[in-house]
């Protein structure tokens, strides 16, 4: 009984909001170290357990929004990323990405046509990740950059889950 309580306690501790702060991967890991400035993370975005971190390029024209939700199970995670790009990308092109489970990239323009938008979604177990890249209209985020950052994020999620 005592052992069961201890294990349960550890499981609950892993889902504490404060721990989500270590989940998002800083884009500076795959860029020059001063390229992006991080805003303070937002915990439990839209009332869902997880974290959103926004990284703004020093030039101000590029922004990466990284949202990771930690949901009850893998099915809920898959459902969460299903419509992540809806309303964000107009006439977007969809392609698979070698990131996590069900990695998908949707790229196109914002509905108002003022910026390029690329959305990478994938799941890792019960975690649903959505990384949005907003940039200049003629300079969308390169696919190799999107995939590389996504893979780093996937690894960070796995490490976090295993901890």
């Amino acid at each position: 009984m005592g052992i069961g309580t201890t294990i349960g306690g550890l499981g609950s501790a892993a889902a504490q909001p404060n721990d989500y702060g270590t989940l998002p991967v800083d884009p500076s890991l795959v860029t020059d170290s001063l390229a992006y400035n991080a805003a303070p993370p937002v915990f439990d975005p839209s009332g869902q357990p997880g974290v959103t971190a926004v990284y703004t390029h020093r030039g101000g024209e590029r922004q990466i929004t990284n949202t990771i939700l930690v949901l009850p199970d893998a099915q809920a995670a898959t459902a969460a990323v299903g419509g992540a790009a809806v309303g964000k990308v107009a006439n977007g092109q969809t392609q698979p990405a070698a990131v996590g489970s069900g990695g998908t990239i949707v790229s196109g323009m914002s509905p108002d046509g003022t910026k390029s938008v690329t959305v990478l979604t994938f799941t890792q177990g019960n975690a649903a990740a959505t990384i949005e890249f907003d940039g200049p209209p003629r300079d969308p985020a390169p696919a190799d950059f999107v995939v590389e950052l996504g893979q780093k994020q996937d690894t960070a999620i796995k490490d976090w889950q295993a901890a």
Partner: protein
Amino acid sequence: MRKIGMVLAIAAVMSGSMTTAQTTYAAQSSRDTNVYIQPAVPIGPKVQMFDCRGTTGDMGWFWRDGWRGWACYPC
């Protein structure tokens, strides 16, 4: 009269020495001025971008501050 001549001679010698000294000093000063080089005022690092036909060798790369920060990007 002889004393007066001696005084004038000494005065002339001293005057000549001083004139020579001034000339020498002036010459040295002039040479020093010519040799001395005012050190250039240091300026901060300057970023010079390359275009597709620039020093990247016209290989179709462009050096700019993009998604990966400062790096070479395809044109």
